[in-house]
């Protein structure tokens, strides 16, 4: 036992040392966590993740540890209870070594809005890691840990996974409890994680999923054994190629890598089927998301007021305290999003904006369900391009490339269907990813096909070498 304790402690400390070395380059850690007590507890459990160092996105509560959600508003907030996912990690014997950076309150896709500064891509420090779960993604990609928790409201696990060349997975909505996770938009928020191989993603799902009465959206639908099923071949699998997305991608390298992989899948017995959605409908994904997410976020974060918890600014009255605290506490992007959310929630706009968006959401979900009538999974490149530079000007926000190719993965949040990104190849030494979406509750098929595609890419375990 003592020897095992020493081995696990050494492993945890080695990981923390590595994280400290990476920090000046990646800026991906918000807080480091003491491991001594955790190791003692893990030795008592001897669970399936015994002694494995893991990382939490900093919007996940771990009792006694700071949880900032990368917002100055929560700079001094210490969690007073464990998120369910933390309890499950503890049961499994994992050792939580750090908490990682995110876009402020999870609202963003670049991880440049954290109050602790931008997270850098481990393949090229002048580029973004993607967001909002960019800290977790960068640290798994660098090889510091094998498993890190993220959350995904739009594509906040699956897009950074593509930019960092790793596996990013979100299961069915409600499959992993959201209890103890600082929310962004409750009807879209998923808990998921990053790994460097699909098999570990499947194993982790078996440990982290399950009905939780403390999360009112947690599902009871049993999970099949997704690990045992991985070896099933691609024969008779029907892979739907999402034509709207491919048509919106003008990068020939991305298209070539994608179609080369699809050709290999066909050689393994998969049937490729072109599928598409009404062109006008798919272009509504982003504005629909923007309205729903910002309206929900505005309501969710009204409790950040400087009175009961979080940072505090003095004032002569309660109103002044709240106004001073919220003015200083939120970054400009968050304030902008709250204004938009508040605009959508105004009585006179609810019908035209929020309710309209919720009805379009139903149309998008129905159209996605229809695409699944003929296929097992829907696939497309997770992004049209490699990770952008930190100071890259944004692309035309009304172009098909932006509205469709860069934002279609939100369909996974509207539908709640499970979705995974895996690396599909490299362009100029930078990774590109492929995304898969399966029907709701069918993680088994999703992970099976992802596992088989991973074999074809030869990129299992891909790791970035960060120049220290």
């Amino acid at each position, binding site marked *: 036992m003592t020897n095992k304790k020493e081995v696990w402690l050494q492993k945890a400390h080695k990981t923390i040392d590595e994280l400290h070395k990476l920090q000046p380059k990646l800026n991906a850690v918000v807080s480091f966590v003491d491991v001594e007590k955790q190791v003692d507890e893990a030795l008592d459990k001897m669970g399936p993740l015994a002694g494995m160092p893991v990382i939490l996105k900093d919007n996940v509560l771990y009792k006694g540890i700071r949880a900032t959600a990368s917002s100055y508003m929560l700079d001094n907030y*210490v969690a007073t209870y464990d998120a369910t996912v933390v309890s499950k990690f503890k049961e499994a014997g994992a050792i939580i070594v750090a908490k990682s950076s995110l876009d402020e309150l999870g609202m963003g896709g670049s991880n440049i809005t954290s109050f602790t500064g931008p997270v850098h891509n481990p393949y090229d420090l002048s580029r973004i890691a993607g967001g909002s779960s960019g800290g977790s993604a960068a640290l798994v990609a660098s090889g510091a840990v094998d498993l890190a928790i993220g959350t995904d409201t739009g594509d906040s696990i699956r897009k950074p996974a593509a930019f960092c060349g790793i596996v990013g997975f979100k299961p069915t909505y409600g499959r992993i409890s959201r209890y103890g996770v600082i929310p962004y938009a409750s009807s879209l928020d998923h808990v998921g994680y990053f790994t460097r191989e699909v098999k570990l993603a499947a194993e982790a799902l078996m440990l982290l999923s399950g009905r939780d009465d403390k999360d009112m959206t947690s599902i009871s639908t049993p999970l099949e054994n997704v690990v045992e099923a991985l070896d099933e071949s691609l024969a008779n699998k029907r892979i739907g190629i999402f034509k709207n997305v491919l048509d919106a991608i003008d990068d020939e390298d991305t298209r070539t890598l994608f179609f080369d992989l699809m050709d290999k899948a066909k050689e393994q017995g998969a049937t490729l089927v072109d599928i598409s959605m009404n062109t006008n409908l798919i272009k509504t994904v982003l*504005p629909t998301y923007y309205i729903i997410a910002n309206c929900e976020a505005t309501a969710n974060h009204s409790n950040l007021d400087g009175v009961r918890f979080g940072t505090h600014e003095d004032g*002569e009255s309660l109103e002044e305290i709240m106004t001073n605290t919220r003015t200083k506490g939120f970054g400009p992007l968050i304030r*902008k999003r709250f204004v938009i959310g508040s605009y959508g929630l105004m009585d006179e706009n609810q019908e035209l904006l929020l309710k*309209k968006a*919720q009805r379009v959401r*139903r149309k998008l*979900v129905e159209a996605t369900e229809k695409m699944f009538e003929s296929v097992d999974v829907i696939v497309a490149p997770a992004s049209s391009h490699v990770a952008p530079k930190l100071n890259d000007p944004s692309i035309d926000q009304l172009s098909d490339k932006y509205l469709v190719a860069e934002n279609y993965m939100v369909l996974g949040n509207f539908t*709640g269907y499970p979705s995974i990104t895996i690396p599909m190849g490299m362009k100029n030494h930078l990774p590109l990813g492929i995304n898969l979406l399966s029907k709701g509750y069918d993680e088994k098929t999703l992970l099976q096909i992802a596992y088989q595609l991973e074999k074809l890419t030869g990129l299992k375990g891909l790791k970035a070498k960060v120049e220290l």
Partner: protein
Amino acid sequence: MERISVKKVHQLARQLMFSLSEQEAKDIVSEFDTLLSQLDLLDRIDTSDCEELVYPFETPTTFFREDVVDHVMDVKDVFLNAPKAENQYFVIPKVVKDNDE
């Protein structure tokens, strides 16, 4: 949808209990133009035949349970993060002022 004004942006910010600089308010107004163009895309979709979808699944996930106490938080933990607390109360400036104040 109509364009939003700088005045309206400030008004919304006040309701949200924060202030915006003039530049921030102007930036929001200009970004609203892009948003409004994107929102026009929603109007092209006929939704007259459908209800709003709020959550991904419409299968019930909440159930009646026995009326027993569980998941209790210690009072000490409740006030752990309070900027100002006293005798199990959050302390704020006096709301009802004395006559001579």
